[in-house]
């Protein structure tokens, strides 16, 4: 063990938080930082798209049709002669928003639901988890179709609907983690200190259960993006001329023999995002695990 500088005591004054320490450790992981940078880059572009897009996504050039990448259209055009780069930029707005918002919804509901069930145990746990089982058993397509029919097609509602489906697995993972953690003596120590259940869950249980949750989150974001494409394909999500990466990919896949760029570029955008997410997720998991740090 190295002898740390005395300045550490000064640092302690500012409060040592797991998250601050995690951020310091994350900064040492170059790959994770690269992932973060790529994500920030994509998000910035998505936010600025209406101002920086080279064309409007409605502008068609039917005479041009599907054309390969050229000086005017860097990534080529689709079969209606629309600029593919513009489409990818607008599509990214939808896909990233669906990915992050729906996953955030799933994360918040799932983690708190699972943690409460796991910590309470007994009847509360049984009741809460049976509800999860019932929701699992409901065919989720019907659920979303119903929502769309009752409330009309609405992007925000779509986010919430997907999130409301995805949290189920998250809740199960969290519950399993919390169940094994709460057997540990440090939880008993927290009880004997007089901490309230809410404080025990937020301070002692959730930080120790984050590893698997983060890994699952990075897996959820892409699956949510693809889910949106599927729903849009069925006419339940967003409609042309609006678009998303998922939609672009599924149209691109239909014509990939004649116009491969229609598949390659949207695919590359999605893949890059997923890589970035994975690197960041792994980095975060390691950063939050204080044991992995060697200093």
């Amino acid at each position, binding site marked *: *063990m*190295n*002898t*740390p*500088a*005395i300045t*550490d*005591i000064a*640092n*302690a*004054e500012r409060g*040592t*938080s*797991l998250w601050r*320490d995690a951020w310091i450790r994350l900064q040492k992981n170059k790959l994770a930082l690269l992932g973060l940078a790529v994500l920030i880059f994509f998000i910035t572009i998505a936010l600025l798209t209406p101002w920086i897009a080279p064309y409007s996504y409605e502008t068609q050039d039917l005479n041009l049709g599907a054309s390969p990448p050229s000086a005017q259209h860097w990534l080529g055009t689709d079969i209606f002669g629309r600029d593919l780069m513009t489409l990818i930029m607008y599509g990214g707005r939808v896909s990233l928003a669906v990915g992050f918002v729906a996953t955030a919804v799933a994360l918040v509901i799932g983690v708190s639901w699972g943690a409460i069930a796991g910590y309470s145990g007994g009847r509360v746990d049984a009741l809460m988890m049976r509800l999860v089982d019932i929701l699992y058993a409901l065919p989720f397509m019907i659920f979303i179709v119903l929502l769309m029919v009752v409330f009309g097609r609405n992007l925000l509602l779509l986010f919430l609907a997907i999130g409301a489906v995805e949290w189920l697995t998250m809740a199960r993972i969290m519950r399993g983690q919390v169940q094994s953690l709460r057997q*540990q*003596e*440090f939880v*008993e*120590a*927290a*009880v*004997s*200190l*007089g*901490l309230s259940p809410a*404080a025990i869950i937020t*301070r*002692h249980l959730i*930080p*120790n259960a984050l590893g698997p949750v983060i890994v699952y989150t990075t897996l959820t974001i892409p699956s949510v993006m693809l889910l949106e494409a599927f729903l849009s394909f069925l006419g339940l999500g967003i409609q042309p001329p609006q678009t998303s990466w998922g939609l672009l990919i599924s149209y691109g896949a239909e014509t990939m023999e004649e116009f491969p760029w229609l598949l390659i570029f949207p695919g590359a955008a999605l893949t890059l995002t997923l890589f970035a997410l994975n690197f960041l997720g792994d980095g975060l998991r390691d950063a*939050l695990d*204080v*044991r992995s740090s*060697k200093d």
Partner: protein
Amino acid sequence: MSLLEVKGLKVDFVGRNGINHAVDGVDFDVESGKITAIIGESGSGKSVACYSLLGLIPRPPGKIVAGTAFFEGEDLLQMSEQGLRKIRGADIAMIFQDPMTCLNPYMKIGEQLMEPLIFHQNVSRREAKNRALELLEEVGIRDPHTTIDNYPYEFSGGMRQRVMIAMALINEPKVLIADEPTTALDVTIQAQILQLIADLQKKRNIGVVFISHDLAVVADIADKIIVMQNGKVVESGNRADIFERAQHPYTQKLLAAIPGGSKKSNANNADTLIRVTNLCTWFDQGKHHEPLKAVNHVSFSIKRGEILGLVGESGSGKSTIGRSLLRLLPITSGSVEFAGTDVTALGGRALKTMRRRMQMIFQDPYASLNPRMSVYDTLAEPLLLHKISHRKNVEQAVLKLMDDVGLARHFVRKYPHEFSGGQRQRIAIGRALATQPEFVVADEPVSALDVTIQAQILDLMLDLGREYGLTMLFISHDLAVVRHIADRILVLYKGEVVEQGNGQALFENPQETYTKQLLSSIPGARHLQTNP
């Protein structure tokens, strides 16, 4: 003639922070029919020295730098992995510390016993089974014909260790390396396993290497003792040399660390702080079973400032009593009074206030600290929760606590995994003291620690107890430890109090058979009589 002769063994571990000379020029030899004990605290290199002989250290980062280890004319250190595999488990066998994790939980013990036989000696299944049965009988497993088809979870810790020993013996090894084989066991079981190892070694004329951190454990069985510190042998000799004529200061320190002597009971006239009446804590075992009566009609009281020792083996309900007192477990019936208030009836705010006044120190300092909270967070939490310190001056209070429990101030931002077991236990003690409690339950606070560290922590607890005016319930399976620290002792057996009295009286004149049995199990009692 030596069976195994190790000379000038040097093992390095190459890490990020440079090279660690884990074993630094160690010589020892093992003779057939003799027990060689290697003693040292964690990190002294005693296990690494033995494991490296069999190629069982991870390489890298481990590296054997120099030395020879001749076994039957061949140098083990020069042998190929294939050659070693033939010797491991066949000619040189091992027993590990933790019988709970060393058996495959999904395999019947019979299968596990037969596996090395079939692998090493190519014998038929039927013959292997017969050998397994004989051995189980030899290591003292009752009714081997039935138990051979049992899974490990169906055995107690001591029985599992017997199975492990049978497993080690099945290929009739010439050398047996036992790495802390009794550390995870209760005192009474430990005595039985030590006896078993000594008997088997005599009967089969094998050479035993017995690795331990505790000199007392080997006092009755070792022929030769080697004391290691920081990778070097600091002293070696026969039993009498070590116990009666120890030269090296480290050996003397180890001897002194063995808890001995009874604490003088200061008969005080203080008022009663804790009064437990007819406490029952039963666990439901489903509708069709009798409840498990972990604690059954136990009554006792503790005076203010007194340290009450609670002794019993695993499953005697001693931890359950501690947890029941602190309302960490729901009790079935009876009452627990704390300064006249019935704790069992409290709830809400009153319970939170009461929790501040009674704290617990847990057995396993590795599990009782939140791995994601630094020392600062761990100690600040109770201070802020009970508004003992204001947010502005909590840092001073945390540092004061660290001073009290003997932790250097610059550790304040470190996380639990960066500390040794003893240091972690200091953090846990600091956390318990942070609420300025009047009563502390210490549940086996030193049983997971090395002997030398054990002595330090016990002294710390005695000092702090005096300084903070603590009343303590000290739970342990180790009578010697309890005798050292407690004013009065309660002996628990199967959930009931069988005997109580002050340390001196209990030790000199035990009344109950069970107490006598406990007393006779204390390792090395005969050799340590002279030691105050």
